[in-house]
């Protein structure tokens, strides 16, 4: 059983969470991924929280399954070795600033000229062309520029970005799809090419329905107040849960499931607009506070009413569904290490493997990776 990306050599210079997640997926599906870091290590290693040994948890998540080399851009010998490594690569991923090829003294076009079979991915905040090329950007600015922050959060509060590095990881998934598409094209008799992916645009792409609704649909979406319409989780006895009780033909069943039997047949609540009022919200919310997430989720699911319990990080780790699906994986070289999430799809012929523990910066030598030695993590 060969991994899908068997034989693919990847160098990731990006130093960004987006690039790191993109190359982490490549490693999971069998590519040999080398993280190229500046002296002192990539800046993602400085992201908190830290574990008891002072290691960055987000960096461990994104760097697992890879090798790491450190390259000093001021050292001509190291840069020459890096050039050798890059020319051997099937995929090279660069970022902005000190994660850009040019920071390491490598010219993008010249590299593509010397390695015409290569897929060279620029994964940056704003793309490599256009009026914002080269500008600083992060998750916060991606949520703001893409339009998503304007609809995230509550009506009477400030717009919200998504939590943590959601935009970066998402851009990493998007870039993975583009890079492997380009690899498919190459393997079918084409050549390599440059792929320009912007973190902001990866998020903007999925703002599309909102964009068109703002233009000619039901109007521009605004931030809302907490209600029962299915947009927000609501309070129940032991936490929060989302349910689509106000909507659709199932509202009667849902009302019966939560014990509001008489209300289910009251014509007062038949119009959708009546079920989107504070009065209906108060009625339902009072009942929901007396019930727990598991009971509600089970009884509503049985009636084909969509519902979902809010799970905290500790609860997700204990979740029966994720557990039975084999979603949590131990690193093969770190059997007593923590469980790692994902990837989120099961491929029957080319399953993912999580082989290497997250490397320390420069744990592997440039000589060994540039010469093509597979190497193992000690």
């Amino acid at each position, binding site marked *: 059983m060969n991994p899908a990306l068997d034989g693919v050599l990847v160098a990731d210079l990006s130093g960004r969470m987006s690039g790191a997640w993109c190359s982490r997926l490549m490693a999971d599906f069998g590519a040999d991924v080398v993280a190229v870091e500046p002296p002192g290590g990539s800046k993602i290693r400085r992201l908190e929280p830290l574990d008891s040994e002072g290691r960055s948890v987000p960096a461990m998540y994104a760097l697992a399954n890879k090798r790491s080399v450190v390259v000093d851009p001021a050292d001509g010998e190291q840069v020459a070795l890096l050039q050798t490594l890059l020319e051997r690569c099937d995929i090279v991923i660069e970022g902005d600033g000190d994660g850009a090829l040019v920071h390491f003294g490598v010219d993008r076009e010249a590299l593509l000229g010397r390695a015409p079979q290569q897929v060279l991915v620029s994964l940056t905040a704003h793309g490599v062309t256009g009026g914002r090329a080269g500008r600083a950007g992060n998750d916060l600015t991606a949520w703001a520029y893409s339009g998503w922050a304007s609809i995230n959060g509550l009506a009477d509060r400030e*717009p919200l970005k998504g939590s943590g590095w959601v935009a970066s990881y998402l851009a990493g998934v998007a870039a993975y799809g583009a890079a492997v598409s380009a690899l498919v094209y190459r393997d079918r008799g084409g050549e390599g090419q440059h792929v320009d992916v912007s973190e902001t645009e990866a998020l903007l792409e999925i703002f599309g329905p909102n964009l068109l609704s703002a233009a000619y649909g039901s109007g521009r979406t605004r931030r809302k107040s907490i209600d029962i319409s299915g947009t927000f989780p609501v309070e129940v006895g032991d936490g929060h849960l989302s349910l689509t009780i106000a909507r659709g033909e199932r509202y009667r069943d849902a009302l019966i499931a939560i014990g509001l039997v008489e209300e289910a047949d009251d014509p007062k609540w038949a119009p959708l607009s009546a079920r989107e009022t504070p009065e209906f919200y108060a009625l339902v919310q009072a009942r929901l506070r007396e019930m727990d997430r598991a009971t509600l989720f089970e009884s509503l699911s049985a009636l084909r009413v969509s519902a979902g319990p809010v799970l905290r990080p500790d609860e997700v780790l204990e979740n029966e569904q994720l557990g039975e699906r084999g979603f949590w994986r131990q690193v093969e070289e770190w059997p007593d290490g923590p469980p790692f999430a994902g990837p989120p799809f099961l491929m029957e012929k080319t399953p993912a493997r999580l082989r290497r523990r997250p490397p320390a910066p420069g744990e592997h030598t440039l000589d060994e990776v540039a010469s093509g030695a597979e190497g193992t993590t000690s």
Partner: protein
Amino acid sequence: MSEWGPLAGIRVLAMTHAWLGTFCTELMALNGAEVIQVESRRRPDAWRGGYDGIYAGAVPPTPGLRPWNVRSLYNAANLNKQGITLDISQPEGREIFLHLASISDVVAENFSPRVMRNLGISYEDLTQVKPDLVMISLSAYGGSGPWRDRLGIGGTLEPSSGMSALLGYPGGPPLNSGQMLPDPVGGYYGFAAVVTALRHRERTGEGQHIDLSMQEANHTLIGDASLEYALTGNVRGPMGNRHTTFAPHGVYAARGHEQWVALAAETEEQWRALCEVARRPEWAADGRFADRASRKANEDELDALIGGWLAGQDRDDVVAALTVHGLPVAPVLDGDEVAADAVFRERGVIEPVTHPEAGTWPQAGIPYHYSRTPIQVTRPAPMLGEHSAEVFERYCGVTPERYAELEEKVITGGGPPPEWEPAPQVQS
């Protein structure tokens, strides 16, 4: 067959609906694959909104306008596809479907596992007609496990994936994102999975089935939070716009209604530049903000000072000034502003798309810029059944007479089936 994009020559049969699967297959179409989207006349895509039309005012009144063809949600998520209608619960419809599957490289579906079992078009069934088929099933919780038949939509998967518990204001309740973010997250991952399988097929000739869980897809985007709990015992909660490491890092109100600035300072240089642009040398000299750790420890005070300064400033002037100094800074754009943004238009990611019934509107089109195989928007979202006759004739040899028979049997065609009656209008 398209002749552009890295997936030119790949044919996809899409039994996808709403947003999760349609976005996955839209990405294939945007990358040059030929995507044939299958719908049923008796139950068109939910994102068309049904036949009753709840879209008064959506587009200017037009003679012959059919509401199900002009819904903005559907038309935003199905670019570059051909649309056919086919009732595969009828033997003649199933026969056509199997033929189309036999000449396709990929079949994608996002029904619940229960529906696919009932339809009898499992991966095993389809490999009888196409042995090297790549098939992806996208569902709420995946095709196995105790929750496999539970319903889920974006608004209920965001909580159960663990995302909602981390989205919100510090100390506040868990929230969901503004619009069903979990669907396109699954769609992006589905596209990634399919091209991975295509790469394997190119090298080995072997197809395979992919089972994607939306719950899992969304959890990977916060997987560092579950790793944090496993390693440290800390249960992360909502942090608003704050960062685990840097301060300031927030969204602040500028002068005017709904004028917001998102800004962060991640380095000492950026922090000093912020103090300079704000003309607040006292901030730079304040011991509470002397370094990264102290700024993070005194974030409430810092946010109050920055908020006080920005309240009197013009949003775009501040963004321009801080950009010059290299800070990560952005205006919070709304939908209208995104559509009009000069940089997005310059890069071609926002471009006008003309739909025969809905008109011409700016849409989010291409997410990737390839140097050798550039991608493009060549078609608006299909109208219901728009390409049925054409596709059936080209690939199945269906004559116009035969097509008319199929239409009469409601196996294909466009618009509501004969027995359809408008829903009673409820006064609200």
